[in-house]
């Protein structure tokens, strides 16, 4: 817990990194994001929780424009999210994303997966890219698997490679879209540990998850979403011990008693 408080001090000293202002989005008749206002400060770890279909994954995906929005504004590090094209690609390179289904490039080795972005987007030197990739793979604990293909790895290993792939771009903020939801229970912790380590190091993170333990131990703030709205946001201790809204109380009563 001491680490978290260190991160909180950082927050106070730095500016806003990701800002969403009255963001709206519809999927046909479904209003998935309703007037979302959310500000994430540099170095802050924000965990987004809520029932299925509450719009939390969509929220996460709008931040690097994998989902477009209907109205409102999103700025990252002071810059408005560009429309399609080169500008958008440049911005995405600064926003790391980790998916529920890992999405490692199936035709490339683990090492190539982590090098690809550096080579194609950052135009890095091949040797340096490989060094960095190997260092990152060691850091997430899969250094020995570097020459294997993703399908040869366990889910937990694949997800850690995916985190390394995102980190290789030197992102300003990392988005995690339910990173442990597709994993066998025994592999969840190895991924959460890597994420916890990242949080301790001061990475700005937006994490959509069902892992309440992670929210308690690593988050600076919990954002609770339901039916396309942000219903409540608070520090984890406060949220879990004393939720203010009925919707959050109901949600927590359903998940915490198992």
């Amino acid at each position, binding site marked *: 817990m001491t680490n978290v408080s260190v991160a909180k001090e950082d927050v106070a000293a730095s500016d806003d990194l990701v800002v969403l202002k009255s963001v709206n989005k519809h999927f046909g008749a479904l209003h998935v994001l309703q007037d979302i206002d959310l500000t994430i400060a540099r170095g802050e770890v924000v965990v987004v929780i809520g029932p299925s279909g509450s719009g939390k994954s969509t929220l996460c995906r709008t931040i690097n424009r994998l989902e477009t929005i209907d109205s409102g504004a999103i700025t990252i590090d002071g810059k408005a999210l560009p429309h399609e094209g*080169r500008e958008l690609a440049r911005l*995405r390179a*600064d926003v790391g*994303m980790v998916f529920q289904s890992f999405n490692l*490039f199936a035709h490339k080795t683990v090492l190539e997966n982590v090098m690809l*972005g550096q080579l194609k987007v950052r135009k890095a030197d091949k040797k340096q890219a490989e060094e960095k990739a190997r260092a990152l793979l060691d850091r997430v604990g899969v250094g020995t698997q570097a020459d294997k293909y993703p399908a040869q790895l366990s889910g937990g290993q694949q997800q850690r490679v995916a985190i390394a*792939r*995102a980190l290789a*771009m030197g992102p300003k903020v990392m988005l995690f879209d339910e990173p442990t939801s597709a994993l066998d229970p025994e592999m969840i912790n190895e991924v959460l540990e890597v994420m916890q380590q990242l949080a301790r190091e001061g990475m700005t993170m937006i994490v959509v998850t069902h892992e309440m333990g992670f929210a308690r131990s690593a988050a600076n703030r919990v954002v609770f979403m339901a039916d396309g709205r942000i219903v409540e946001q608070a520090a984890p201790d406060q949220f879990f011990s004393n939720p203010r809204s009925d919707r959050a109380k109901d949600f927590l009563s359903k998940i915490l008693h198992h």
Partner: protein
Amino acid sequence: MFDFLDGYDVLGAFWTTVQLTLLAAAGSLIWGTLLAAMRVGPVPLMRGFGTAYVNIVRNIPLTVIILFSSLGLYSTLGISLGAGDIVKTANFRLAVLGLIVYTSAFVCEAIRSGINTVPVGQAEAARALGLSFTQVLFVVVLPQAFRAAVGPLTNVLIALTKNTTVAAAIGVGEAALLMKDMVEKEAQLLLISAIIAFGFCCLTLPTGLILGWVGKKVAVKR
């Protein structure tokens, strides 16, 4: 029994068939890939062009396309693809062009079916890294699509090998033209047909076997 073959260059004719096949295969692979890229791309104009091209071209008989290459492009418009007045060379090149125009429509669809086997997440992950559309397509999606499309592309290649016989319609000296020539001059109809059929099997059977093996070998494990 095979004495009558003396005056004919059977191997030479089949060599022309092979040349037509390989050149048209290379050309239609490139053009078909570009068409597929247009059809999955974000630019409406290109998507429209790709769709229109495929739907028009694959519904025209190959004979019409090949005849147009010769009569329309060469005889009427004087386009000889650099062959000048040498009719034989011009017709060969025009036949290759016609085969490329026709076959690329099928190559495009085979590749598009391959693209459909690549999970959406692969492209999303590539976009999230900051790759441009072209990079996403050529670095991540198409390499996987090709591996999945080896089977359908093999069918297209075998069909192309046999389709080269249509080039006989504009006098390209490949296997089918030789057969026509021999059937007219020799009283060995069945034997001649069998020889030509055997020749084509010698080309297409190994194609199918080898590419079938390649397809398994390069398949992407998920």
